[in-house]
């Protein structure tokens, strides 16, 4: 089956600056592919190339097997693109706005009215049908823009930071809509610099930094391939001696790279942070061993969320540094 997105050695340079430095990526039908990376990593540039707004300096980008520079018009028929920054025609009413874009894609007049109703239903703006776009809140505009990407029932949605600048509630709403679109079988390429936002939504993730796709695949695949050193947080009950014994015991266990007591010596429970090199099964074994040896474990958790840890590990530097 033809992949929906395929790039080969994609390069884009501005003057002497490389924005995208050779990205190879394949996204199959029905996938939700999350592009994750710090600001300036090349996410937007990659998406703009796929949306036929930028021509790559070198390499090739195909959407549904069609080259974006060879036949941009055909590519445009198959994608819905939501840029990271965009404006709306605020002198139009909500339905007129969608009607306008539907006409741009030459959706037959007979189908437009019903379709606009459905789209407004999906993005939760059904009651705003006759409102002026001007009067919509930011979150509503964002959802309207998302609706506009759907007017021609495209195979691929390219959404550049669809949740940026939204309050937590609007973010949740946006995520719910994306989930619904996933249910409709759309292929979605979505970018974000905030990781947890994407983690549960995406079928696969690409970590991008300095113009390079460092890792791509499902979250589990990436985790496995990295053999992550997770930071475990273990809470222990008991007096100083008991804790000291546990610390000593942990130090001898397989996979443990470091043990540190983080709380004040006499606090209850005592908290340990344990660097652990291994998968979830290894973590379970570790916990089982501790409990079996009579240590009173009252809490056992991972200190950082998987994706974030992954991300820092893969990119090897902080967000701030890149920005």
């Amino acid at each position, binding site marked *: 089956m033809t992949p929906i997105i395929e790039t080969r*050695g994609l390069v884009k340079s501005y003057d002497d600056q490389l924005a995208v430095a050779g990205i190879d990526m394949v996204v199959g039908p029905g996938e939700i592919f999350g592009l994750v990376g710090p600001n300036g990593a090349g996410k937007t540039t990659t998406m703009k190339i796929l949306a*036929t707004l930028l021509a790559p300096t070198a*390499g090739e980008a195909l959407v549904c097997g069609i080259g974006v*520079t*060879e036949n941009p*018009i055909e590519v445009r028929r198959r994608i819905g693109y939501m840029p990271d920054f965009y*404006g709306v025609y605020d002198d139009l009413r909500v339905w007129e706005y969608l009607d306008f*874009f539907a006409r741009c894609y030459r959706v037959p007049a007979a189908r437009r009215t019903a379709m606009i109703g459905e789209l407004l239903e999906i993005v939760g703006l059904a009651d705003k049908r006759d409102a002026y776009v001007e009067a919509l809140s930011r979150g509503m505009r964002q959802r309207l823009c998302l609706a506009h990407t759907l007017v021609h029932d495209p195979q691929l949605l390219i959404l550049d930071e669809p949740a940026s600048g939204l309050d937590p509630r609007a973010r949740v709403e946006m995520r719910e809509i994306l989930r619904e679109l996933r249910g409709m079988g759309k292929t979605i390429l979505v970018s974000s610099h905030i990781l947890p936002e994407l983690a549960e939504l995406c079928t696969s993730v690409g970590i991008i930094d300095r113009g390079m796709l460092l890792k791509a695949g499902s979250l589990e695949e990436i985790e496995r391939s990295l053999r992550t050193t997770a930071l475990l947080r273990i809470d222990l009950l008991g007096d100083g001696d008991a804790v000291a014994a546990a610390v000593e015991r942990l130090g001898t266990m397989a996979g443990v790279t470091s043990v540190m007591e983080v709380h004040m010596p006499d606090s209850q429970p005592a908290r340990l942070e344990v660097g652990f090199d291994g998968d979830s099964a290894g973590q379970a074994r570790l916990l089982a061993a501790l409990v079996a040896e009579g240590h009173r474990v009252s809490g056992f958790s991972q200190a950082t969320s998987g994706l974030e840890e992954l991300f820092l590990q893969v990119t090897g530097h902080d967000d701030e540094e890149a920005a």
Partner: protein
Amino acid sequence: MTTSALPVRRASLARDFGASVATILSRELRGRFRGRRAFVVLTIYLAVLALIAYGAYTVQAPHARSLAGGVTDPSGSSTVLTMANASASIGQAIFSLLSVFQLLLVAFITPAFTAGAISLEREKQTLDLLVTTPMRPGAIVVGKLLAALAFMFLMILAAIPVSALVLMYGGATIDDILRQQLILFVTAVGFGVIGVFFSALVRRTQAATVLTYSTVLILVIGTLLAWRFWTQIATNDASNQFAEIRRAPEQLLWINPAVAMIEVVANTELEYGDFTGVMQSIRGDSVTIFPSPVPDKPTGVTTLGGGGPAVISGPIDCPPNARCALPGPAIVQPELVSSHFLLRFVTSFAVLSLVLTLAAMRLVVPAGMRFVFRRRRRAASGAASAEGSPSVQELDA
């Protein structure tokens, strides 16, 4: 592709283009005509023109009255004719003033309507959404241009009844009014295209507006001034021993709508008037002020007013361009080659509009895609060179 498929494909392309233009047009018109603004602007425009027509009448009427009463006609038989001439002088005054003011208004208003066409979309960041639709960039430009011009056209058309007042008095024919309207339309299109072009060229609407008005000024006033100075300098040249007038090339003035309009007005002047004077100074000796061929034996020569050359009234042996509707001796109007500048202006503006529209179409294509549409796959070599890109080492370091 088979030969039979080609016309079909062409037809569907044209249909697509038309549909896209209509889409843009309807969106733009929705915005432009919504609310009271369009109505108010149109009303003010018409009120100003009506006021100008009234002003021309007020100024010319006493003069015309004295004209009608004070002329001694040698043949003593044509009071009706003098009355008609007096009335025509009012019509002519209205026509010339309306022509000039309408042209000025069109030149002044059109850039304001069009200079934001593309740049506003850029500023409001809506252009990316538009160009990622399958619409051709050309259709976007044409749709925007037509939308901006639609209102201008409406204003020009709505003002035709004001110009038609002239027909009541005489002094200008329907032909003259049609020429006047043609110039107004062509000027609106040309200046509109200039506005859209600059709007596509520069990012900011403000800059586009300034550039458009500057260009309009250069075309309307700049070319005349340049022509004038050039002529002056050439005439004053030391080598010019006999002080003959050496005119600058008139091509400079082909792109000037004002000159074309002056020509149209000069063509309606009953005697040697200001507009005729301007035309004569531009066209020089080649101008035929008197009807050509001059009637062999004029039956009567009447001098209307002093100063200019005599106006000949002769037997009805009327050259095509003369006004001679009345029986008996008629005033034959000084004839210029009536559409010399008109034709050249319309042609040069048509070419200018076409070129700038095509240029604007190219400019609307997303900046990064502009020059790559026809570049075919060089991907293999490109990908290979990308592998060794410097940032790989940079990252490892």
